[in-house]
Structure formats: structure tokens, C-alpha cells
């Protein structure tokens, strides 16, 4: 029984991690139809922002929850201005350019900080579930994932900015009709997506360690989650991370970490073969 609860908790942590690392990518993809292959490096930059400001003496929570998203959001604004904006509507070129950015960020950060694993310990202690112990930080991640997804949903659903965002998502001309320039909406969407990615990077850093190449571990997972989810960014990301996270974690328990990941990837392929438009292409089509 204890084991079942411990495993369930681990599954939830797996889902939460997947959700957290995918959300920024999903916002950018959902709003702009831009696949940001520098997403992994946004995560990495968020982790570095957190670790550096924590080392500079800032409170660890402030560093993770405030500094990381702000810093990466600012980088996102610059990236949008300098690169993305010039390539709107050219999905493929945008992918390639962001890939170039990804390599560039890895190179630049390696030059500045070296390719050494840094990291900080998970704040919060451990929790006991019967005879089992689990990291309290895992619970925190689950909570953070819930807050994040609820927050994004509430913003989209209840605020004027959310209305404009939903309108642009449906139809870019509509935003123009509402008197907002789509390019402004896109710029904000990209910055928000980047900020979410930065936050995600800081959140996973205590688990993953901080290296310039840490993004490459996550980008493929995030990419697959978002695409498997399909067009509706919240429902899609939620359903895809729920499914894939469960498969990966249970697979890991049953076999090895590698086979767990292979199982997850195989499920993604089968799913895309059956639902070529992603999960929300078929179900929850009208959700956000």
C-alpha cells in the first residue's frame, strides 16, 4: 500500500516535471505556431539565472521563482526582436533559426561558466509515506505544476489580455480587428513563453544539476509532449504530459530508465499515427 502511494507520487512528479518543462514551449507553439528549438536553452538559462543569483546571496526562492523567469523573459524579448520577428510565417526557418540559437546559447554559456556541473540542493526536506520516504521537493513540483497551469488558464480565460490572446490564437486578423497589432501579441506571447521556460529551468535545477547542455535532455521530451498534445495548448499539454509521464514513470519502475523512456517515445509515435493532429486534434478540441 505504502509502495503504491509512493509510486503514485512518483508518477505525479513525473507528470508535473513534464508539464513544467513543456508549458513554455506550448504557449509559444499554441499562440504563434512557432516551434522554439531553443526552448531547452531557455530552461538552461533559467537554471543558471537562479543559481547565480542564489550564489550572489539572494534568497533561493526569490532566485528560482522571480529572477529566473524575469531574466529569461528578457532574453525572450531580445530573441523575438532580433530573430523570430523576421521569420513569422516561415515555420521551418524559425525552427532552424531557433536551433541555431540553441547551439549558440550552449556555446556562449560554456565559454562563460565552463562545462562543469553546478547545482544546488533541493530546498525542503523529505516526507514520509508509511515506510517510504520521498523528497518534499517532488511534492512542491506537483503543486507548482498545478499553480502554473491554473494560472495560465485563468489569465487566458478571465483577463482582457487573455481574450486578445485567445482571439489571436483562433485568427490573427481578429486581434487586428480588436485594435491590437498581432506582432505585439506575438512579442508578448514569446516573452511569456520564455519566462515560463526560465521558471521551469529553475524549478528542475535541483533535480537535474546545472550544465550548459542540460537543455538537450529536455527539449526532445518537451517537443514531443507539445506536439502529441496538439493544437489546444493547455488541454493538450496537460493530457499529453499526463499520458506520457505516466508511461515513462511506470515503465521506469517496471524495467529500466532507458526502457521507460523508450516506452514513452513509442507511445508518442503510436498516438501520432492514430491521431495525426495530436490528442486535442481529436478530443477537447474546443478547449484552450
Amino acid at each position, binding site marked *: 500500500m505504502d*509502495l503504491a502511494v*509512493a*509510486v503514485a507520487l*512518483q508518477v505525479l*512528479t*513525473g507528470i508535473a*516535471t513534464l508539464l513544467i518543462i513543456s508549458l513554455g514551449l506550448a504557449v509559444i507553439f499554441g499562440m504563434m505556431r512557432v516551434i522554439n528549438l531553443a526552448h531547452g536553452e531557455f530552461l538552461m538559462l533559467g537554471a543558471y539565472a537562479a543559481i547565480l543569483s542564489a550564489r550572489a546571496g539572494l534568497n533561493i526562492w526569490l532566485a528560482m521563482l522571480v529572477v529566473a523567469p524575469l531574466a529569461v523573459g528578457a532574453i525572450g524579448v531580445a530573441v523575438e526582436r532580433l530573430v523570430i520577428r523576421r521569420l513569422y510565417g516561415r515555420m521551418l526557418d524559425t525552427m532552424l533559426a531557433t536551433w541555431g540559437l540553441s547551439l549558440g546559447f550552449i556555446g556562449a554559456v*560554456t*565559454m*562563460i*561558466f*565552463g*562545462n*562543469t*556541473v*553546478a*547545482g544546488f*540542493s*533541493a530546498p525542503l*526536506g*523529505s*516526507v*514520509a509515506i508509511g*515506510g*517510504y*520516504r*520521498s*523528497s*518534499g*521537493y*517532488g511534492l512542491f513540483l506537483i503543486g507548482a505544476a498545478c499553480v502554473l497551469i491554473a494560472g495560465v488558464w485563468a489569465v487566458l480565460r478571465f483577463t482582457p489580455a487573455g481574450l486578445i490572446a485567445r482571439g489571436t490564437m483562433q485568427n490573427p486578423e481578429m486581434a487586428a480587428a480588436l485594435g491590437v497589432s498581432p506582432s505585439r501579441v506575438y512579442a508578448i506571447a514569446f516573452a511569456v513563453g520564455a519566462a515560463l521556460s526560465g521558471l521551469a529551468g529553475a524549478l528542475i535545477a*535541483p*533535480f*537535474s*544539476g546545472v*550544465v550548459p*547542455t*542540460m537543455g538537450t*535532455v529536455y527539449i526532445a521530451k518537451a517537443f514531443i509532449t507539445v506536439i502529441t498534445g496538439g493544437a489546444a495548448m493547455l488541454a493538450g499539454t496537460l493530457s499529453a504530459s499526463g499520458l506520457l509521464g505516466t508511461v515513462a*514513470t511506470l515503465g*521506469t*519502475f517496471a524495467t*529500466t*530508465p*532507458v526502457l*521507460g523512456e523508450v516506452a514513452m517515445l513509442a507511445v508518442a509515435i503510436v498516438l501520432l499515427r492514430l491521431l495525426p493532429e495530436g490528442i486535442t486534434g481529436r478530443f477537447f478540441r474546443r478547449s484552450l
Partner: protein
Amino acid sequence: MPIARRSILTGLGAALAMPAVMRHAALGADPIKVVGIHDASGGLDIYGKPMIACLDFAVAELNDAGGLLGRPVQLINYDPQSNIQLYTQFATEAATKDRAAVVHGGITSASREAIRPILHRYQTLYFYNTQYEGGVCDRNCFCTGSTPAQNVNKLVPYVMKTWGKKIYVVAADYNYGQITSKWITKYCHDGGGSIAAVDFFPLDVTDFGPAIQKIQAAKPDVVVSALVGGAHISFYRQWAAAGMKSRIPMASTTFGGGNESLVLSPEEGNGIVAAFSYFQEIDTPENKAFLQKFHAKLGSAAPYLGGELAMRTYVGFNLWAEGVRKAGSIDRMKVIEALETGITNEGPPGRTVIDGRTNHVTLNVYLAECADHGFKVLETYPQQPPADTAMVCNLVKDPNSNRQYVIDVKI
């Protein structure tokens, strides 16, 4: 600032080596080329950087003492960036372009097995100065680190005596981890213990959550880790975060080989037991003298010498230099023959003797416990022979051998 440290480190290596070379070059002597191939970047740099520092130091020391056979030694360092393909590229370059007298390097067994055949093919002498899983049988290749019959053989009985007989093994998923885990199993069974499970993790795995739950479910007396590289450090971190440190003790065949003890906080690292053929903390006059000189030369850039990898590189280079002196030449076969007579080095880790039958070494083994970013030495086992490789390899009888035997461990 990390940036400064990194560039100083590389810059310093060059600065240490260069003046000596130039001095001697002015005398008109041709330098002897020595190539070092160690990861100065990438996930394995935690091992590579101290190894490079030690090799730089050893070369500088030799040149300051007048070089070798009246010639200066020129060290060429390559950084394969933790990328196996670059290892093969640099090994080929060392052999065919630099025509090096000897190549020191390789950290993981994977990198060794990538470059060893190349150096064998191009007849370039090779020194592998890392603890590893044993079994390499190649006259061209000298392995100067400890092997399972030397370290696991001490570690496993110790943990079984101290904590209990049910062991859970977590290991890196490549030949080192695979073979080492077999040795752990063997010594565990030999001592009447049982293995709860063996889990393997690819080098890039960072999420150990499910693994930690599995370990808890198996309820072992002790966990023995053979995890490798930067990513795997998060295992120790997550282990501590889950509050497991106080519940199940841990030992490792690799912990401390790099900067693990430095990166982790004392709460995360303290108490983990490891066995190596060297710890910076061993209390001998030779070691003290070495450290003093080392720190005088490198100052604040001097890396922590953790487990044996860096020190073995220093010893390995000196063994080679002694072999050259004895041969009176850098001719490959002459040096090999000289080395095989049983060259001895009295260095910081104690006495090291080359075993001419296996081209491995007899050395002292130390057992220590991680304590506040360093180690506390608990036991010393003098002059341990490479018994594992000796079971399968006899280069006197079979001088043309060019392979790594996977020792058939009777589990």
C-alpha cells in the same frame, strides 16, 4: 569567477610547460613529444581537469630537473570534450601527426577502448592511468590504476562487515559499470551476502526518483554505487533530498574520483565510503611533500586531487619516464621491455610496481569516508597485486594479445 579559473587552469598548464621547453630548445635538443588526451570539458571534465593539472605538473617537474635523456619533454594536451569520436580523432592525430613517444589519457573505459586499438595499430605507446574494471591485455598499453581485485575486493567486505550483507548496486550503463557490478556481486557472494538488485543508468540520466523508490522497496542494508560523471551526481543529491542518507548507508567505487565530494554539500556527501589507490588526505611524508610542491606551483588554481585518477596520471607519467631512462631511448619496444622489468615508483600514494605479466601495477589501496568536502582515511591495504587481470592475461606467454578480456566472474 569560474571563467577566470578555467582559463587560468589551461593557461597555467601551458605556462608551466612552455618555459622549460623553450629553455631546452635553445640548447638545440629536440623535444620528446608526449600527448595527453583528457576531457577538459563536457560531463567528464570533473575527472579530466585534475588529471590534466597533474600531467602538466609532472612534465614541468621533469623539465625543471633537466628533462629526459638530455632532451626536454613537450606536452601536447587535447580536449576531446567528453566526446568519444574526438578521442579517436585525437589519438590518430597523436600517432600519425605528432608522432608522440607516449600517449597518456582516456578516462572512461569507453574512451580507452576507442583509442587503444588505434594506438596499437599505429604502434604508439599508451598509458591509461585510471582505475577501471580490469582485463586489458595489450603489451602496448600500461594500465596504472587500480582494478576490482584491488579496490572492490576491499570495499565490499568492509561494507558487509560494517552495515550488513544485503547490497543494492547502482551502476553506470557502460562497460565499466557492467563489469564492476559483476565484481561487486562476486565479492558480495564470496562474503556470504546477497544482492538485492543491480540497476544501470545511462550517463545522461539525471532523474533518479523512481530508482530511489525502488531501492526503498528492496530494503537493502547498503547501496553500492558505480555511477560515473557529472549527471550522476544528482543521484547523491536526490538520495539525500529523499531523506535516505540517514536510513541506508552508501559506498561507491567511483565517488570521489572526481569532484563529487566538493560539489555536494557535507549533508549530502558525508559518510559515503570509497576505496582508491590514493586520497589527497593520506598521511605520508611523500604525499605531504608532493602537495606542498604542487600547491606552491599552482597556487589557488590547484585542483582537489580527490580519488586516484589525477594522482595515477602523475605516477603513470613518472613510471614512463623511469622506463625511458632505463631503456636509454624513446624507442617503443625498448621502453616497453624496460617497463616490463618491474619499474617501481615511490610516489605520493606509496610504492607502485609494474607487473610485467599484465602491464598493470601493484599498489597500495586506501579505504576512506567522505567528510566535509574531503575524505577521512579509514584503512590501508599495502601492495595489492592486479590479481583479476592476472587471471586472464599473461603477456609473457602471449605478447601479441590486443584485447580486453571480460573476466568471467563466477557469481
